């Protein structure tokens, strides 16, 4: 139903505006639809950021799920190099003796296959990694002992070379 009182009021405001009269206070806010704009605007921006925050809070979970699915499908796929039996694949480079020796020269002999695996010069971190993979006990302490007895020789820039105990002795004699 048309509200005559309201209609008259709005009409008067339009005339005032057309005549160059400025509106102030609550009248101005109501006339220009200010209340609705402020409330709607605040709600929209809140809703927008709420949706965005909800979306990004789930993002890492979705990614984790996808990655898991991806890794599952990869493990199910058969590649020629995967034909190797699982126990063969994880086989350590050097079988460890039941009792690990205490003599440094003997320990160096056990380390030799690892050195052959990673090359003549190597980073200490690589040797550490492969020693850990092969369950060598206390690699840190062993490396320190190797360095002190010049079995591990620094070549600069973090690179080391292997100087087996026999060669070491030769050097000392020479």
């Amino acid at each position: 139903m048309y509200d005559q009182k309201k209609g008259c009021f709005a009409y008067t405001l339009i005339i005032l505006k057309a005549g160059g009269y400025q509106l102030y206070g609550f009248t101005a806010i109501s006339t220009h639809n200010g209340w609705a704009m402020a409330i709607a605007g605040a709600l929209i921006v809140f809703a927008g950021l709420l949706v965005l925050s909800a979306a990004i809070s789930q993002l890492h979970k979705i990614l984790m799920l996808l990655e898991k699915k991806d890794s599952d499908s990869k493990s199910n796929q058969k590649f020629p190099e995967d034909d190797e039996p699982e126990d063969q694949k994880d086989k350590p480079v050097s079988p460890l003796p039941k009792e690990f020796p205490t003599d440094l020269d003997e320990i160096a002999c056990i380390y030799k296959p690892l050195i052959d695996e990673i090359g003549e010069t190597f980073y200490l971190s690589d040797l550490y990694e492969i020693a850990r993979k092969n369950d060598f006990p206390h690699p840190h302490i062993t490396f320190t002992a190797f360095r002190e007895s010049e079995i591990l020789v620094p070549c600069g820039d973090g690179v080391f070379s292997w100087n087996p105990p026999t060669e070491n002795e030769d050097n000392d004699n020479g």
Partner: protein
Amino acid sequence: MDLLFQFLSNTGYYLADYRNVIMIVVGSVFLYLGTAKKYEPLLLVPIGFGILVGNIPFFKGFGLGIYENNSVLHYLYFGVTTGLYPSIVFLGLGAMTDFSSLLARPSLMLLGAAAQMGIFFTLLGALALGFLPKEAASIAIIGGADGPTSIFLTAKLAPHLIGPIAIAAYSYMALIPVIQPPIMRLLTSRKERLIRMPELRDVSKKERIIFPAVAVILCCFLAPASIPLLGTFFFGNFLKECGVADRLAQTARTSIIDTATILLGLTVGASTQGDVFLTPKSVAIFALGAVAFSIATASGVIFAKIMNLFLKEKINPLLGAAGVSAVPGSAREVHLVGQSEDPENFLLMHAMACNSSGVIGSAICAGILWSFMIVL
């Protein structure tokens, strides 16, 4: 002799008006604050120098002034009136922003939304003071504490107010260390300020790459009018994160944003010619800007306190003050206020999360207000 008198009557000394002198003083203050006090120097120095340049009196009709067709300054000002510079600045901002902290704790985004309440309160205030709706919307966006957004919206809705609105927005951004801390302290107890935030989780590279794409779609579908700002903002961020366009990202966050900032600052400063700038409207805009900024800060802090009523793991309510989009000034201020109470409380990364969501929030608000005004 006549020639000499004619020449003298055309000099700036002869044509000077008291309003030009006032504005030159204002420009000098900006330069002083920027260089000596190091308050937002990258903004205040170009603007301050622009004010000096724009207020040198000249013979009208020579094609010298920023408002005269075919003048060099007029062409440079084109980037402001079309909203070009703000878009370019947003591209660079995106290429600089790291959203890791926001991705690690997305709930802090709500503080960025809460701090936008200053915009809507100011909209009502400006309407009540007799400003027309388009002018009121342009003034209100000062509450977002984002210079480029304010300039962008004003250029679209009320170009005649660009000067005062830009100066007010940048002035209050520079005055963050003065305005925000008292409000933060007033609205929080010492116990609240001492709340420590947990360490943020590591965010994967994939998350950071996907975020800008998801955000641009969600935000711009909601408020398409914010595409010029958020489109470039998230594009810049994608360039940064994707890892295959480092050269472009590097250019966006250095040369491109620097060029846009220089031209934006200089021309906005030059647009404050005394006769255009010194009006009662400008005074009202400055007053409303201060109110907008204060309400924005307060609403962020209050909303953080409200969130604490429902959260098991309380958040430090100071973070709410970083919901305004003055990056990184307000985040730094939150961190400093937190550290003044407990030197081992590190709030910076959490505050940056609120700050970056404030940038998104204020750009969405600009889009919303622009859409509302199209309907009017």
